[in-house]
Each structure stands twice: as structure tokens, then as C-alpha cells.
């Protein structure tokens, strides 16, 4: 009957060796992009005191361009305050960009009204870090999942029950979960509900904002696997936002490293880890503690200082205040993103 059912029978049985890698390179060259972000800027006003009149602005996202193709997973990684979540929220149009363009599925949605956005948002969905905050505590899971199906006329009344059951099955929850309330579930199970709620529209793009950051390691692995399975089954495209480098590496085909509102390096996952070109990328990877005590003798490269304020980013290269290789030019001239498959914004990229 429904598309879901045929999917469900295949769920979990497909071999996963053919994932990404070469395949996504080909798609990059041949296909239309699903999402194009062009020179996006999203600023927030700084409110200070009672008589605030917008004394300054936080440049959360400052000139970011990003292209995503169908079936890809682009990982956005960076530390707190680098603007990675703001990019996700701007794409969903939960924030109003200052300038730039967002073209999704051949539509320029940058200035769409709420009414115009309504049909678009069935094609792009979001998964949040804390699913408990996005579930209504007074509504049973069944109703949480059934309501959008009814409102958007995605299923006939008689089919809703079956549709919800197959959704639950698809995300690995028992049918009986439908009659329970959000507080009766563990963190991992709630994230499964959040995922079920996101996929019920059959979206093309899902923005995953720190979906596994609040979960224990063993549960994190379950959710990452589920996201990968669903991507294969439903042909999903993910923008995967996380500060956890391990999770980003596990799921992404392409990774964009962000620092202070900008993308500083963009490359295919393997390439980025084998050959990081931006000093920040290398320091970030180096700072991640590996579960191997024999590595602790290696001299660690440590970034000194804190991230500068995005209200007043340093002139020149934004990383120069903390960069161990910074030269005179880095203090004055802002580096531009290079072209090509492994792009980097650095005057003196590492070999």
C-alpha cells in the first residue's frame, strides 16, 4: 500500500559496502545540486541593557557558501560559537539571513514568507540535539506522529494507524510505543522518535543539529547506524552538524570545518583526515583524545587562548590570533577559499 511498507521489509537487510566514496563524486559532477548556499550571512543583534538600540551585531555566519547534492552527507564541524547551528537554522529558514541566497530544490527560499515556506518544510526537516524539548510531553507518540500525516493529507484516516506503525518499525521502536508519552522513553529512544517525526514527510533534506551529542557512546552508535540505514532506504541527504569529530567522520561523505562564522576547509571525509590543510583543522583533529593510551607520549599540539568574539572578529585571517604558523600577511589580508575539491582558506596551507 504505502511506500513505507515496501521499505520496511527491506530495512536492515541491505549490504552497506556500496556507500558513498566514489559514487558521491560522480553524482557531484552530473547532478543538479539539492541545496546551494551562496555567500550566506546571518547576524544577531546584541542586546545589552534596557535601552538597547542594537549597539553591535554577532556575525554568527559570515559569508558561507556550500553546495549539497542528493544522497550526500555533509558534516559541519567546529567548536561552540563557530556558527554551525546558525547555518542549519538559516537553511531551514528558522533565522532570517542578512544577505546571500539559499536555493533548495531549485527554489530560492531566501525571502520566502511563512506561508510559502510551509510546503517547502515538508521537503526539508530537522532533528535536534534534545528530542525531549521538541516533543509535546502531554501527547502520546502515536498522536505526535499521526497529526502531521492528517494535517498534510499524507494518509487517509483508515491508513494512519498502519503508517504510524511502519514509521515506528522503521526507526526500531516497538508498535506499543505509540500509546506511551515522551517521558517514558530513554534519550536514545526519544531521538528515534525525533527521527520518525522528521522522516514522516519523506523529506529530501534533513538538517541534523547535534543529534547524538547528548547520548552515551553505545547509544550514539545505534543512532548513527539508524541514520545511515535510513539514508540508504529513503535516499536522504543530511546536513550533519556536530562538534563531535568522531560522529561527523563516521557519517559524513564531505566535511566542512568552521571557525568563527566561516568555513575554513572543505573536503571529502577521507581526504580531510589524511591530509588536513588548514592549521585549525589539524589542531582540531589533534586535540581529539584517541582511545589509545600508547598515543599519549606523542607531543600534543595545543591551541592556545580562546576563540575571539564573533561580534568583533580579528582582521585578516580570523584564526591568526591562535595560529602557530601565523605570518605578517595573515594579520592583514583575509584568505579566500581556494577552488577545487579540497578547498581551504589559508595563505599558507599545510603540505
Amino acid at each position: 500500500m504505502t511506500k513505507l511498507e515496501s521499505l520496511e521489509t527491506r530495512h536492515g537487510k541491505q549490504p552497506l559496502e556500496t556507500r558513498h566514496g566514489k559514487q558521491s563524486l560522480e553524482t557531484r559532477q552530473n547532478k543538479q545540486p539539492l541545496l546551494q548556499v551562496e555567500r550566506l550571512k546571518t547576524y544577531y543583534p546584541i542586546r545589552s541593557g534596557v535601552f538597547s538600540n542594537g549597539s553591535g551585531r554577532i556575525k554568527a555566519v559570515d559569508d558561507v557558501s556550500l553546495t549539497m547534492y542528493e544522497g550526500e552527507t555533509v558534516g559541519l564541524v567546529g567548536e561552540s560559537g563557530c556558527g554551525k547551528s546558525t547555518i542549519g537554522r538559516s537553511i531551514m529558514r528558522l533565522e532570517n539571513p542578512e544577505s546571500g541566497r539559499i536555493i533548495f530544490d531549485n527554489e530560492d527560499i531566501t525571502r520566502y514568507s511563512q506561508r510559502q515556506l510551509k510546503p517547502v518544510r515538508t521537503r526539508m526537516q530537522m532533528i535536534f540535539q534534545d528530542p525531549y524539548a521538541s516533543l509535546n510531553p502531554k501527547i502520546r507518540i502515536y498522536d505526535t506522529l499521526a497529526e502531521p500525516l492528517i494535517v498534510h493529507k499524507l494518509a487517509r484516516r483508515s491508513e494512519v494507524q498502519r503508517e504510524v506503525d511502519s514509521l515506528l518499525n522503521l526507526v526500531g521502536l516497538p508498535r506499543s510505543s505509540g500509546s506511551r508519552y515522551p517521558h517514558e522513553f530513554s534519550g536514545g529512544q526519544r531521538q528515534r522518535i525525533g527521527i520518525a517525526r522528521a522522516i514522516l514527510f519523506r523529506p529530501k533534506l534533513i538538517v541534523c543539529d547535534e543529534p547524538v551529542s547528548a547520548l552515551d557512546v553505545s547509544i550514539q552508535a545505534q543512532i548513527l547506524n539508524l541514520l545511515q540505514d535510513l539514508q540508504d532506504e529513503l535516499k536522504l541527504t543530511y546536513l550533519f552538524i556536530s562538534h563531535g569529530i568522531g560522529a561527523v567522520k563516521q557519517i559524513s561523505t564531505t566535511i566542512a570545518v568552521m571557525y568563527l562564522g566561516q568555513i575554513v576547509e572543505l573536503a571529502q571525509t577521507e581526504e580531510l583526515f589524511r591530509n588536513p590543510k588548514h592549521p585549525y583543522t589539524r589542531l582540531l583533529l589533534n586535540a581529539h583524545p584517541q582511545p589509545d593510551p600508547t598515543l599519549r607520549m606523542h607531543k600534543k599540539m595545543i591551541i592556545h587562548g580562546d576563540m575571539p568574539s564573533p561580534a568583533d572578529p580579528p582582521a585578516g585571517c580570523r584564526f591568526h590570533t591562535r595560529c602557530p604558523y601565523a605570518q605578517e600577511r595573515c594579520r592583514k589580508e583575509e584568505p579566500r577559499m581556494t577552488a577545487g575539491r579540497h578547498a581551504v582558506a589559508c595563505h599558507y596551507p599545510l603540505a
Partner: protein
Amino acid sequence: MGQLLEVERLQVAFRTDQGELISVDEVSFELGAGETIAIVGESGCGKSVTSLSIMGLLGAHGSVKQGDIRFNGETLTDSSKDQLRRLRGSDIAMIFQEPMSSLNPVIPIGEQIEESVRLHLKLPRKEAKALAVEMLGKVGIPRPEAISKEYPHALSGGMRQRVMIAMALVCQPKLLIADEPTTALDVTIQAQILELMKQLQAESGAAILLVTHDLGVVAEMADQVIVMYAGQVVEATDVYTLFRAPQHPYTQALLKSIPRLDEHNRARLPAIPGAVPSLQQMPAGCRFHPRCPAASERCEQEQPQLMSAGEGHRVRCWIAASAEQERVDYAAVEATA
């Protein structure tokens, strides 16, 4: 005994509306001066409760029901509130995950450090102030003199955690309990703080009890490791053995479920099925058996004790223990032959 901290068969209970809950059961370990021991496990495994019970900070509803905690030969579980208060902040110090919630938002940070110095070291105000500034400099705070007059909100997360470390170490404690000290910090700041903790430990010779969920941090910091699951210690050994040859199926599975940066394949992560059991519904037998790939009938019925699995290596698992027994028997046969 020579050990700084000895925890023996600790059992911690909490009173709740549904009756008494045993949160931590049968936890034993020892920690020598200058050593670092890590307690690692997932949320709800009892690692934080274990560390809080040492400090006597279980709150109104929690109490140590059985077992002993000895610090420097003194039994803490018998100590009065006054005795504990004298120890806390001087001989035993603690840092927590969220520094903002441990700092007073309306007192400059320098004064907060001074308070501890004047209370425990009985130094006059002027000297206490100088010591506080010196300590802030030691933990890598730039312009310590000026920053000591700042309020906590003016500092970044990493700086606040440095202030907490300064406050914890200013009275030169013998034991530092660090409960998820870097969990709220960015990874580059985490690297700074871990480095700082190691350097200060080398200087002061303090022992560290590190509570964390992050096996990467464990690998970086610990000498000894205890792995906890569902309120119990399931494996205890030195850090190298733990990562090279883990014996408990839970430890093995936990290590496999971490995405590795140094391996290049995108195969599925081996996840642990199911979820951690709740305290109200602990399974009979081995507490890990419903999620264990190797569980046998015995595991479902009989609860394993912590058993030896080689030199200085203890495991709460029937399968690992019987493998070890076979190895010992075999060695004995070899020796007699």
C-alpha cells in the same frame, strides 16, 4: 597500608517515593599518592555517585549503606560533618563539569579563591590574596592580578574551569576528584585543561580520581581504570591492559562503538543493542546479560563477582573468568609436567 584512598565494597542507597534504591553496589578500588584512577561508564552507571560518596556529598536522601571509605588511614564513612568539612577543600578537593554552577556569580573570582586559603591555611588576607593571584597565574590565566577582580560571567568556559582548578589546588590537596572536568568544554580547550591537570599533578604530587564517560580522556590521563555498568564495577585494570586486552564484553563493546579517527572505513559501528537497565528493574544474574552477545544460562541466573583475570586485572564476568581459570590450570599442568 600506604594507599591514599581505599574504597571497599561500597554500597550507596537513595531513599525515593518507590522505596530504597541501591545506586552503587560492591565498588572497591585503591588509589596511591600521585596516581590517577579513572572511573568510566555511561550515564546512570553510578560513577558520579561513587565520587560524591567519598566527599560525603550524597545529599539528604543518599547514604553509604555498606562498605568503607578510608582516606589517609582515616575512615571517612565514620567521620562527623565537621571532620569532613575540614577535609573538603584542603586535603580533598573537587572540580565539576559545569564551573559556572560551582562559582558564586556575585563575588570576584580572586576573593572566592582567597576564602578557601584563609579558611584552610589560616593565612592573613594579604598573603591569601597574593597566593590566589599566584595560583591563577599557575593555571594559565593571563593578567592574573587584573582577572582576579573579575566576576565569573566575564570569563569563558575554559577560563572558568581554570579558576575552578586554581581553587581546588590552592590548598595543595592530596586528592583531587574531577567529575567530568572537560565535558562541557570544546575539544581544543579540553586539550588545554587536560594538559594543565597533568602538569599540576606532576608538580604537586596529588592523586586524581577522574570521573568521565569519555574513553579518549581516560586513555589520555589514567594510570588505573575502573569500568562501571549499572552501579557495579565490571572491570578494573591498568590503562594499557584495558585498551589492549579488555576482558569484559561490555568494555569490549564500548571500545568498539567509538568512531575512530585513525581508521579509514565507513563500515557500521558495532553498537550495543538495548539500553542500560533502570535501578528499579535490575536484571537477575549478570546485569549486562540482556545486552551481552556471549551470555549463557549461567549469566542469566547467577550474579558474577569481581574475579581475577590476570595480574592486577579483575573482571565481573563468568565467561572471562572461566577462560582465565583454564589458562591458570593449563599453566599449572605445564609447570608440573
